[in-house]
């Protein structure tokens, strides 16, 4: 097994913990306004307060608490989307690769067609029709992501199908479904996992971009992109409103990408160049 990059793995784990249990760590309620402490700079700067470590926004809401709440929504949205997209793609890829023939041709043409569309435009068209909000953002990400899994799983199936142990199982009369689930899928699992981890990074960027445009997560929910969008107006007086969430996005995406690429490199040393 390849050694995973320790720093990136640690950051990913910390982010997931913050996303799951962060509410317990939030020093304040994320959407509690405090007009006595508006636009307080981060602690350590002139005017900073110890109880607001990362400062407050234009309504006096605590930045640290909002960032933690944003972590919850940003990561959960990405995670849910990747899980569903992955499942759909894996199932279609398995069916296509295993059955071959017309079914395969149909699923693969559909996959190609989806991969050839510019996904940000697809996302915009879907949001335009269905409206913003968490559920629709997840739907957008599922629609734009499943095809990559289908293609990956199909190519894995095609290569594994020819291996001796699968042929033997077939000769021994094991049913196709059992072969697919018991023998083919486990062999493809690491590369699926690698793609999923890489997709989390992609999903975080997509969600934050849409939220930034006002087409994603809507208040009173909080996400990193939304905090950035709200902070933009106050950029000339309060840099901390846009710098913190941006840094978090970059940190999260780099960590997930590094882990994903290392996982993939384990499979295909060429891509790790």
């Amino acid at each position: 097994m390849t050694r995973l990059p320790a720093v990136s793995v640690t950051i990913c784990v910390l982010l997931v913990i913050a996303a799951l249990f962060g509410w317990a760590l939030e020093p304040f309620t994320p959407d509690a306004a405090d007009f006595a402490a508006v636009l307080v700079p981060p602690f350590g700067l002139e005017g900073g307060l110890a109880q607001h470590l990362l400062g407050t926004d234009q309504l006096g809401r605590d930045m640290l608490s909002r960032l933690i709440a944003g972590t919850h929504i940003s990561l959960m949205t990405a995670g849910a989307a990747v899980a569903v997209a992955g499942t759909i793609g894996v199932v279609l890829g398995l069916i296509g690769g295993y059955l071959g023939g017309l079914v395969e041709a149909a699923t693969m043409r559909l996959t190609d067609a989806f991969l050839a569309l510019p996904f940000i435009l697809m996302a915009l068209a879907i949001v335009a029709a269905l409206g913003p909000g968490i559920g629709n953002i997840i739907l957008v990400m599922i629609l734009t992501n499943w095809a990559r899994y289908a293609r990956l799983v199909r190519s894995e199936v095609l290569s594994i199908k020819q291996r001796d142990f699968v042929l033997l199982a077939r000769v021994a009369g094991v049913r196709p479904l059992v072969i697919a689930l018991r023998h083919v899928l486990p062999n493809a699992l690491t590369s699926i996992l690698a793609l999923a981890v890489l997709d989390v990074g992609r999903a975080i960027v997509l969600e934050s971009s849409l939220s930034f445009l006002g087409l994603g997560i809507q208040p009173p929910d909080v996400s990193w992109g939304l905090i950035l969008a709200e902070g933009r107006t106050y950029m000339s007086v309060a840099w901390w409103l846009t710098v913190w969430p941006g840094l978090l996005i970059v940190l999260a995406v780099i960590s997930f990408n590094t882990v994903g690429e290392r996982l993939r490199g384990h499979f295909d040393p060429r891509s790790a160049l």
Partner: protein
Amino acid sequence: MAMFITRRVGQTLVTLLLLTLMIFTLARLTGDPTPLVMPSEATDADRAFFRQEYGLDRPLPEQYFLFLGNVLHGNLGISFRFREPALGLVLQALGPTMQLAGIAMVVAIVIGMPLGILAAVSPVGRLAIFVRGYASLGQAMPSFWVALMLIMLFAITLRLFPSSGYGSVANFVLPSVTLGFYASASIALLTRANMAEALRSDFVQMERVLGIPWRRIVLKHALRNAAVPIVTYLGLQFGLLLSGAIVTERVFAWPGIGQLVVDAILNRDFPVVQASVLVTAVLFMAINLAVDLIYAVLDPRIRT
């Protein structure tokens, strides 16, 4: 070769059909546009007339073919908001977007290619590590955040460039750097990988033995060999830049397609959304198709 072209063109047509089907479905999901278009004092008879005029009273499959026919005739509907043909609005906005994407492309090549070449020839690999860091940063930083940080530094603090607007040369600097930065990261990575491979090849080793100056080997012979995949990739990048421009335009108030489409979504002006998505997607696919066909002409190995 003919086989490859036929298949590739066929594939593009399937994608196009899927795209129109998707847009049509989404357009129907937005609901009946009649109340959005007709003035509030319109009578029920007026509304019925409108529905009939636009074919909204026909069965869905028939409506789809009607829609397809309209698209083929360049009729993409009338903007609810501006009362003008949506296609005209989109074509008007296409100019600024193409300018921005074009200049961003130049920025990306000027930064990315030299970085990639230097990293490939760097003996200790320190530059290679730098390029890897640069590339992963470039891929992880969302363009709107890069844009905001550039504005904060160069427009608010240093007051060197305007933070938004369109018209003068200075207006181009921040948006094109924002957009170009993202593309430069992947161009650098790809250049490095292809150059490294070309430098390892037998003929380069042979030339070294023959005593041809190193600089000449790198810049003339190895680069020429590495050029085909790089140039192909530049084509694909341009397509990505077109769609990437959407977010960047929004931040800098750039009067392009991105700005148009986001405004249209926020104002529920679906014909404009539909026209923007169609035009940009067709452009994107046409570029990809052209790149693939050119690649097939240049490199016979991929014509399978």
